[in-house]
């Protein structure tokens, strides 16, 4: 080859693996933010979640006198539930799940994935970079939106002295579980996206597996209770301790953490491995 090409290759030999992975992160970061829908989705869902929870907290604050004595004694559970209501879980899951789907299926459905993998034949590294970017963004989002929601709702409740403090025993762990629901949803969505590569199919499977199944599984019979325990939604409710009604088949918080961890790990492995062994 002529000298001109060699000259245009600046020190490719001594670029470390870490430096070149940082390049992939930067590329995925650009791709992530250069779609208009990204910012839009994050802002809208963040506002919606804060509004849902603020509204729930305000309702409990206004009706506090209507609570039974037993309920008042166990108010921590209501306060936690106001901090992150199941309907805001739904909003979070849909918004961040959609972002996760977008990052993966947006490349497959447009054919961009072929341009990407021709530029970067190390496919696993591409997917790893996507995972890191999505996890970083969604974790920050979780800290701001879910963390913010906790402080805002408890401030409302505290006007009647029933708000929780993050330093109260056990509260930090419960808030942490809520915050971590933010990165978990898009990780799972990305894995489903890599497997299905089609947006409608991916969103459907994700919503069914992540939300409809756990909601519809009854906790009353042993088999459905155990199946329910295998889902992140139920695990989150268990750790945040916001399961209302009788729970005939109790399970430990550590089990709930394990379930979340396994979902995250399996999602990451699937996302990185599946792309390596496939024609594009």
């Amino acid at each position, binding site marked *: 080859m002529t000298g001109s090409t060699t000259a245009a290759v600046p020190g490719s030999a001594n670029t470390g693996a870490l430096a070149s992975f940082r390049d992939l992160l930067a590329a995925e970061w650009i791709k992530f933010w*250069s779609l208009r829908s990204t910012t839009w989705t994050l802002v809208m869902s963040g506002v919606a979640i804060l509004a849902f929870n603020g509204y729930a907290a305000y309702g409990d604050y206004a009706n506090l006198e209507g609570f039974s004595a037993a309920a008042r004694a166990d108010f921590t559970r209501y306060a936690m539930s106001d901090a992150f209501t199941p309907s805001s879980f739904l909003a979070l899951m849909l918004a961040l799940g959609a972002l996760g789907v977008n990052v993966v299926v947006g490349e497959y459905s447009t054919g961009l994935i*072929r341009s990407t993998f021709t530029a970067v034949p190390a496919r696993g590294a591409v997917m790893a970079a996507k995972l890191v970017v999505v996890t970083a963004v969604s974790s920050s989002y979780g800290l701001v939106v879910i963390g913010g929601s906790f402080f805002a709702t408890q401030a409302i409740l505290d006007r009647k002295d029933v708000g929780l403090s993050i330093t109260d025993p056990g509260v930090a762990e419960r808030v942490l579980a809520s915050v971590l629901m933010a990165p978990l949803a898009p990780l799972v969505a990305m894995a489903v996206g890599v497997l299905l590569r089609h947006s409608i199919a991916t969103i459907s499977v994700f919503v069914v597996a992540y939300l409809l199944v756990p909601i519809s599984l009854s906790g009353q019979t042993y088999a459905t209770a155990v199946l329910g325990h295998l889902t992140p939604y139920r695990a989150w409710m268990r750790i945040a301790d916001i399961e209302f009604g009788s729970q005939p088949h109790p399970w430990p918080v550590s089990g709930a953490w394990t379930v979340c961890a396994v979902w995250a790990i399996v999602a990451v492995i699937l996302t990185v491995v599946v792309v390596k062994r496939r024609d594009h």
Partner: protein
Amino acid sequence: MIEVKQLTKRYGETTAVDDLSFTVRPGRVTGFLGPNGAGKTTTLSLLVGLSRPTRGTATIDGVPFDTHPRGLRYVGALLDARDVHGGRTGHDHLTALARSNGLGCNRVRQVLEEVGLADVAARRVGTYSLGMKQRLGIAAALLGDPPVLLFDEPLNGLDPEGVRWVRGLFHRKAHEGRTVLVSSHLMSEMEHTAIDLVVVGRGRLIAAETLVEFAARGRMPSVTVRTPDPTALSAALAEAGAKVTTQADGALAVQQMSARDIGDLALARFIPLHELSPQVPSLEEAFMKMTGGSVEYRAGRRQ
């Protein structure tokens, strides 16, 4: 240098590429030619590691392309101009690709200038015409200033001005010593583009030779001759060993004898000539003749 050896790719029952072997040399534009469904796109995606061969090997400069963790500095490929996300601007698309390979923003600016998209780089790709997307794909292929360039049907959607520009670009890149492989299903597109040809049909190699050699297969070179006395000339030519056929308009088509010899012969016999024109063999004809038996989707044929 591209080396394809006994390459086979099957999709279930379909054999897209069948025991294909050829070499593409640097320093000249090579046309990769075949009718629809011949396996051109499949071969190119095997070359860049997007799919895995069922058998055989495809190497670029001695190694399979996917042994490089980052590819843009080794091979620039445009497989399908639509392989972009319509929601991003052309500039963002190229910047992300460049960044993934550790290339700077000035490379993005340079290639945008080179393909003439600088003015629309801030627009979303979804608003680009097919021709503009082709240019964007070419820009992406040029980003890493690679020694090997692969283009799948790059002339699709380009206007005559664009076609001329692309041909010029291919020639320039080849002249700089690069390997340039350009696929097409139209012989006419190759006529002013390629020096070498790799012709495939139904996944099999039909020819790998220079365009000039390939063209010569189409039809024996012939010379069209007009004269007021065709009978005398025909007899004289036949006597001298040429093959003469009379055409509908009265002209003679002479094969196996050069225009010069025909002219000399006519002068020697005092037969006046009104026209003496060598016919350049038609590439299109050669292509049809060579691939006729291997057309995958012939019009009117039942599948």
